[in-house]
């Protein structure tokens, strides 16, 4: 109930703002946008673009979780490696999307690889740092117990390190799924050949502002839904493993 009230409030403020600004070129009214949205959803082109964006997003998510966890794990266990890699990861984290663009354009021109690489590089550092921090924060008491009983390294890795990173993998997925769509859309906008981001860039070319907003709504809706579903799926998986 409260969600509906919240949404209505949002639409109402949108209407008011749009009337205040007075130009549908700057902010179209909810009705205009809704009309454009219906128009967009009816097109097969939109559906193809949506699929293109979706598979790229999930690919990036998979790569980020996989490589981020791996690298983060190694960095968390070994302090020397952590100190060596930290500046590199920090720099990668700080580079803005635009700067990757030039590199990516030169490697592959327009296509799917560019958006995937750009999004991957944007999200990987957080995954690495989250996992590394998690590993380093492993219960010192457990590690002490391990030392007292002189448990072999293989067992320690399997039972303690791998087990302890589960909450951090979950955290990585939660953070990444929220951000991946935004980054994918931007990079598609800049150098993609297919996808919702590309459609938005074309809509911009024809100054079709309601279309830009309509496509944005589609992207936002998908983002929220995928986030909810992924979180629920991940929670169920970890509950099976006994991590609450």
């Amino acid at each position, binding site marked *: 109930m409260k969600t509906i009230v919240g949404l209505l409030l949002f639409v109402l403020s949108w209407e008011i703002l749009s009337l205040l600004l007075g130009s549908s*070129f700057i902010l179209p009214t909810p009705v205009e946008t809704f009309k454009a949205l219906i128009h967009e959803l009816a097109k097969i082109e939109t559906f193809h673009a949506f699929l293109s964006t979706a598979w790229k997003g999930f690919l990036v998510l998979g790569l980020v979780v996989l490589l981020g966890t791996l690298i983060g794990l190694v960095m968390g266990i070994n302090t020397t490696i952590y100190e060596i890699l930290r500046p590199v990861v920090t720099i990668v984290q700080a580079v803005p999307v635009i700067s990757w663009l030039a590199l990516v354009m030169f490697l592959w021109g327009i*296509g799917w690889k560019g958006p995937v690489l750009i999004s991957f590089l944007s999200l990987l550092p957080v995954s690495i740092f989250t996992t590394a921090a998690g590993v380093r924060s492993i219960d010192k008491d457990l590690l002490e117990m391990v030392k007292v009983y002189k448990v072999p390294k293989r067992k320690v890795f399997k039972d303690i390190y791998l087990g302890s990173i589960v909450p951090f993998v979950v955290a990585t997925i939660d953070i990444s799924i929220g951000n991946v769509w935004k980054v994918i859309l931007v990079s598609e906008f800049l150098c993609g050949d297919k996808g919702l981001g590309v459609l938005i860039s074309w809509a*911009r070319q024809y*100054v079709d502002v309601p279309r830009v907003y309509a496509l944005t709504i589609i992207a936002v809706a998908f983002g929220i839904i995928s986030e909810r579903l992924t979180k629920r799926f991940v929670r169920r998986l970890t509950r099976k493993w006994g991590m609450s």
Partner: protein
Amino acid sequence: MRRLLSVFLVILGFSIVFSITLINPLGPAVIPVVAITEGKVKGAVHLNVEIWKNPEEAIAMIASKKADFYVLPITVGANLYLKGMDIVLLGVHEWNVFYMVVSEDETFSNWKDLVGKEIYTAHGRGQTVDVLMRYLMTEEGVIPDKDVRILYAPPQEIVALFKSGKIKFAALPEPFVTLCALGGKGKIALDFQKVWGDKMGIPPRLPIAGLFTSRRFLKEYPMVVEKVVELFKNSVEWMNKNLDEALILTKKFLNIPTPVLKESMKRTKFYYVDIKDCEGEVALFLKKLNELYPEGMPGVPDEGFYAR
């Protein structure tokens, strides 16, 4: 003495009250207005020129009524009109600008040469040269997207990719065409204006950009509009007569090297044609665009679009 002062004050007051803003795109289209900004031509009105870098900026200036006159691509102006904006076309001044450039190790004699290959064009689906290119391909039995891959990118990126040999075919506006062809790396294989003219049985030119204002302004201040058009026309003529000087003056706006710009001007044609003398051509052009890609041109502007 007092009379001189009062005349001066009146003119000053007039020009302050009547300071008119014209917005112009960044790019070679700056050259035809540089005579105004640098004071090489003068008119009865003081014209303040502002540069816009992307369509959103232009629209914001128009929508917020900061701009009185707007230099825009014809397609953009038409789209805005169709979406209900109060805008009217006074005349067209940019006529030739689109060409195909082909890498030195490739040949192009007709569209079939592109089968199995890819061609890059600027910005996005539905741009003028994109629509024309697809039309011309289809006419020759080549299916766009299936037989030929068409890719979109910012023109600067296309130049970079072309020069590094990553792409072989590009359909671009000047001066990007010249930038690609520099140093013999590429050759100009097709003049889109000529092909368009041949197909339509009209002179080989495309209405690319022009001067717009609002119908409201036109109704309220017809004399001012006349004066501005005259000033604008003179500025374009001055450029054509004093190209070298104009290019030097443009240096502070553009960072394209002057010799490149000069070379590109061989293929870029600026001359002002009042709308009453080219309405038919413009209408034909917009009609064809709507026919070929209604997504990009959702309708055909009626006579309200053209200033009378």
